[in-house]
């Protein structure tokens, strides 16, 4: 609930929440991958 409230996803429809969370996880995982490759 805190994640939904602080990111304002609480106001969105389920498919929008899924879209945003997927994007977020995608960005974080590529960032971790890149950091890993880079380091």
């Amino acid at each position, binding site marked *: *609930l*805190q994640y*939904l*409230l*602080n*990111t*304002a*996803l*609480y*106001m*969105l*429809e389920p498919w*929008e929440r899924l879209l*945003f969370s997927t994007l977020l996880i995608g960005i974080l995982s590529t960032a971790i991958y890149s950091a890993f490759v880079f380091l």
Partner: protein
Amino acid sequence: GLAHSDSLEDFEETPTWAAVITVLGYALLTALGWLRDFLRNIGLEDKKTAQEPNPKDFVPLYQSYECFYTRNLYTRIRDVFNQPIASVAGATVQVMERLSTDFNWTFKFSGKKLPSINLGSYNYLGFAENYGPCSDQATKSIEKYGISSCSTRHELGTQHYMKDLESLMSEYLNVEDCITFGMGFATNALNIPALAGKGDLILSDKLNHTSLILGARLSGAAVYTFNHNDIQDLEKRLRNAIIHGQPRTCRPWKKILIIVEGVYSMEGSLCSLPKIIELKKKYKAYLYVDEAHSIGAIGSRGRGVVDYWNVDPNDIDIHMGTFTKSFGSAGGYIAGKKSIIDHIRIYTHSGCYSTSMSAPIVFQIISALSIIMGRDGTNDGQKRIQQLACNVRYFRRQLVDMGFIVYGNDNSPVVPVMIFMPAKIAAVNREMLKRGCAVVTVGFPATLLTESRVRFCISAGHTKEMLDHALKAMDEVGDLVALRYSKRNSPRRWH
């Protein structure tokens, strides 16, 4: 008393991280709003807003961009706004439950009524009831006078009960004369143009109500705003206005009118009236005090901020107020010197555009006023005023001690508790309603982007059990939604 009451006023700063997360939330909602508009424009999503099947060259009613916010932010949480009620808006209220299967584009009534403690609407002295002496008087007056005169005062004239109300009101306020109108908003919007005009200057508090802003704009006078309750800023603008005069021609202003409110209903703050009166005397300006939220609710005898600050009513040129919040009725009044009121009687826009006040409305006010003034032989009025003061201080103290950021003056019957994030506007409202409390949550554009809040309106009709129930609910919701932003260890500031 000045130092005393200023120290009672408090606006704890927004925590920076809360402000940042709030703005990021709005940025995310805007980005997704653009995505939704894009999907609607390419036809992937059907448009549920009202369509205008006008021919091509017709000017659209609304610029589609102006409805962006309504379409993509407001609609998502509008189940918590404008909720219909199925009872009198008294200390408790029956909220009609609405269900939506398409994310608040359309609603259906489930038929259920949710009994709730009414912390959302203004009913400061608890006169908003459908039983008791006030409603009896109102009912009787319908039998005698009917519902409405169906015309304006300038056309059909003034009913004698209007004169009774106006003389009672001027006695209550301890001023020479008073005139009343059928609508609070119109009392400002349609009378300021009768008081100021071209070549005049209006100095308006930045957080003044929309009706004051509209009235000032309609008047054609120059309007400068000063920071909310900032006496230094007001004095600086007064000095500049007098030194530089009117723009371009530099002619002196014909008159300068300072417009402030007694209690600011969104901030819960009181205006520093003695200092403002000092300034108006020093610079020979006129003073207009809108006591919409303070008349009946503030002051030891319920006469508003004039009573609270113990100033001379004749130091204020225009007393304005409404009958909506403390008298359980509707309408507004303007009071002051007889010469000014006579001028308004002739030149008010309301006298020729809006119908006279309805009889039951007037008799509700007259009986409520009589009770407050103790004319009914009881001290019920005084008891209500004391009860409201106790409820307010009790409720505020508990919220402060729970670690919430509570804005405004400790004696103000409007209690804003900060929630900041847009999603929490809906979450707090829904969770409180589940717990049997009907509250009003307010967000942008009625407040600053980063200052959404839940605004409790305390009433003399609330019993201690009701307040404790509401506080317990707020305590739970405060944990669930994480609203304890105050950095000060509680009890942090209570005297």
